[in-house]
């Protein structure tokens, strides 16, 4: 049963990326932690692996629509390396409880943002990209 619920959350995570521009990662982490017995740290690490193919598919779609300059995206991605190192090292150093509370805060921030919608205002249907910022 728990596996079914985890799968449903992942399905929802994939679907909302297209609908709301909120990435699936925020649902993959609880799916892994609550239903698949991962620790918070394992859930966060494993969520990142699920995000990789999602982001590849999303980028491919956007590229096909001519929305993305791959060089710009890759530049930001490559320049992120020091940040990723800091984030991963800190995540491994923090107690589990701190990670849980930090992630809970992130969920609440995203919830508030969804309730208020994006500061730029909701995009018109024809402007809405197929898959928005996954993760």
């Amino acid at each position, binding site marked *: 049963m728990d596996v079914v619920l985890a799968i449903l959350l992942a399905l929802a995570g994939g679907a909302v990326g297209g609908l709301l521009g909120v990435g699936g990662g925020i649902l993959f982490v609880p799916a892994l932690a609550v239903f698949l017995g991962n620790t918070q740290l394992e859930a966060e690490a494993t969520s990142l692996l699920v995000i990789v193919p999602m982001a590849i598919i999303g980028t491919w779609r956007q590229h096909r629509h001519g929305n993305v300059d791959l060089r710009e995206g890759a530049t930001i991605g490559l320049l992120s390396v020091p940040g990723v*190192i800091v984030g991963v090292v800190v995540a491994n150093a923090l107690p589990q409880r701190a990670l*849980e509370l930090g992630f*809970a805060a992130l969920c609440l921030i995203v919830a508030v943002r969804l309730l208020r919608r994006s500061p730029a205002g909701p995009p018109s249907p024809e402007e809405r990209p197929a898959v928005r910022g996954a*993760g």
Partner: protein
Amino acid sequence: MPGNRTIRFAAIGILAGAFSGLFGVGGGIVMVPLLIMLGFGERRATATSLCAIVIIAAFATGLHGAYGNVRVGDAVLLMIPAVAGVGIGVAAQQRIPERAVSLLFAVLLIVVAAELIIP
């Protein structure tokens, strides 16, 4: 000025990377608003963010993997419905009221937060 632009990209990338490594999310939540502030349109900002996330998430996965934190079997189990979900989301996009989905998703996130906060 291209140098200036690279510095801004670096700042955005580093911030998103730290967010991603720390929380296990892609980092789009910080990248998209920052790219919009740089003058990107919403569509281009989200597309560029997705492209950066491929590298960010792959590198963060590798690094977390070196710590032994990645459960590959569980990841594969979720990848299949997650990718299927993208298709469903795209198909449903024009038919589902965005406001209702936003509300539902916000409630779901509040439940998740409560679950995490209450020991």
